[in-house]
């Protein structure tokens, strides 16, 4: 496989974009990324678009071709991919593979979702399509409920308490305050979090990521192209050391351990092996904190925090910007927002800025960064390891 570099990134703010069509939101991010990369449109060989629910919420299903048409790309293959909340990460991996395999020298990955225009009922019905509705759906389970189940298991085994989990919320909300793209940064007290609306015990409102609109895009290039354009770029290139995708069980019955997602563990192991690094080498990670307890579970699954210690590390500040491992310096899904199909590429955007040393919440001397995107009840996972050149 060939070396692959990130030449340009673009992103809209995450939040409400009720006056913009979903394809125009994606176009905004793609154009930013293209301009930053300095490559010409007619050089692009493929476009992959991550999206989950544009059909039910927008009545639109040909987004990849729509976006390419709006910006005048040549008649290249344009493909929409779907993997629930991991749709963006999967789109990135496909674009990476297109360049790494030699199929093309330049590929675009873009992720987009618009949700805030829809009613809560429409949104929850659409999101529940990511559940195994034969096995888990009939019980009346919801996605917050899935993580309520996981929290109880984690609490029983490791003693993870409300205070531990609230430490994750407080950190990510605080990080989000300084991120210009974040939807819901805040300074929250433990008491404010504990007093928020019960959703599904022990999950409260502040444990949940918001509903969001947003788009993010990345231009990936081969080493050959990177050499050609590097003199024109206003920023250093970022190298993709590993881009991995794994499958886990689509339902709870298939998870042997309710405090871990198999797809996380296998994706991380494969990514570390491909990148030839170990978890201790990672300076920062943007991981899938769709619910606060998810950050604790994910950080352990990725090997960044010892098993069972996720909550303890959060409360001790070891996952803060200046901690042992900076987790979600962007604010994560909890504060930045979660426009489902855009999230995985939004994470790549954030880590790329970190590795260029351009981030508003800069992790000092960041050189190796990771992203982690998880879909459904753990059915799809992507992990990416990126290396900066600063």
């Amino acid at each position, binding site marked *: 496989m060939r070396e692959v570099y990130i030449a340009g990134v673009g992103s809209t703010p995450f939040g409400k974009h009720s006056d913009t069509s979903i394809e125009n939101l994606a176009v905004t991010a793609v154009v930013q990324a293209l301009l930053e990369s300095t490559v010409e449109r007619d050089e692009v060989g493929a476009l992959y678009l991550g999206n989950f629910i544009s059909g039910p919420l927008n009545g639109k299903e040909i987004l990849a071709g729509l976006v390419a048409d709006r910006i005048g790309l040549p008649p290249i293959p344009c493909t929409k991919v779907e993997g629930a909340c991991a749709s963006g990460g999967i789109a990135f991996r496909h674009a990476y593979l297109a360049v790494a395999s030699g199929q093309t020298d330049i590929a675009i990955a873009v992720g987009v979702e618009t949700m805030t225009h829809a009613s*809560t*009922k*429409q949104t*929850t*019905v659409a999101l*529940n399509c990511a559940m195994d509705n*034969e*096995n*888990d*759906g*009939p*019980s*009346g*389970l*919801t996605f*917050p*409920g899935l993580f*309520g*189940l*996981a*929290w*109880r*298991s984690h609490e*029983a085994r490791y003693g993870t308490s409300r205070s531990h989990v609230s430490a994750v919320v407080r950190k990510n909300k605080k990080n989000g305050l300084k991120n210009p793209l974040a939807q819901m940064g805040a300074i929250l007290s433990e008491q404010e979090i504990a007093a928020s609306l*019960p*959703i*599904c*015990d*022990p*999950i409260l409102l502040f444990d949940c990521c918001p509903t969001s609109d947003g788009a993010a895009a990345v231009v990936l290039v081969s080493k050959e192209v990177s050499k050609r354009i590097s003199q024109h770029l206003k920023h250093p290139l970022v190298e993709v050391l590993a881009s991995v995708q794994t499958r886990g069980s689509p*339902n*709870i*019955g*298939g*998870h042997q351990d*309710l405090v871990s997602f198999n797809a996380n563990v296998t994706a991380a192991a494969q990514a570390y092996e491909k990148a030839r690094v170990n978890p201790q080498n990672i300076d920062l990670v943007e991981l899938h904190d769709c619910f606060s307890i998810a950050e604790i579970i994910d950080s352990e699954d990725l090997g960044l925090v010892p098993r069972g210690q996720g909550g303890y590390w959060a409360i001790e500040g070891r996952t803060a910007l200046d901690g042992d491992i900076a987790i979600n310096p962007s604010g994560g899904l909890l504060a930045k927002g979660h426009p489902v199909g855009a999230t995985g590429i939004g994470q790549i955007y954030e880590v790329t800025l970190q590795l260029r040393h351009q981030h508003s919440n800069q992790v000092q001397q960041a050189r190796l960064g990771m992203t982690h995107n998880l879909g459904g009840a753990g059915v799809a996972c992507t992990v990416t390891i990126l290396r900066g050149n600063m």
Partner: protein
Amino acid sequence: MLIYQCEKCQQQYAKVVSVCAKCLCLKLKETEVADDGKLVTWTTIRRAPAGFSVTAPYDVVVVDLICGLRVTGRLAQESIPPRMYARVKRIATEEGSPIFSVMT
């Protein structure tokens, strides 16, 4: 409780499947297994999915049946409160969901 079992390798499934994922055998038979199991975790849903027929709050439970299958179900409204690792018994099936009760 009714489950589905592969005639070739005996792999068990909580819901009907067209093929055994373990050995790809196409022949699966309905099998009755014991209704008893152990509650491994639970959550109280306070906001039900849109269109769901049961009014919140209700408890969703994950149960390891004695036969070895792990299933997702709901706790009966009249059950005593859930607790980790409690013995439970399926007492009904409602719209595809097993309904469990915590044993004293």
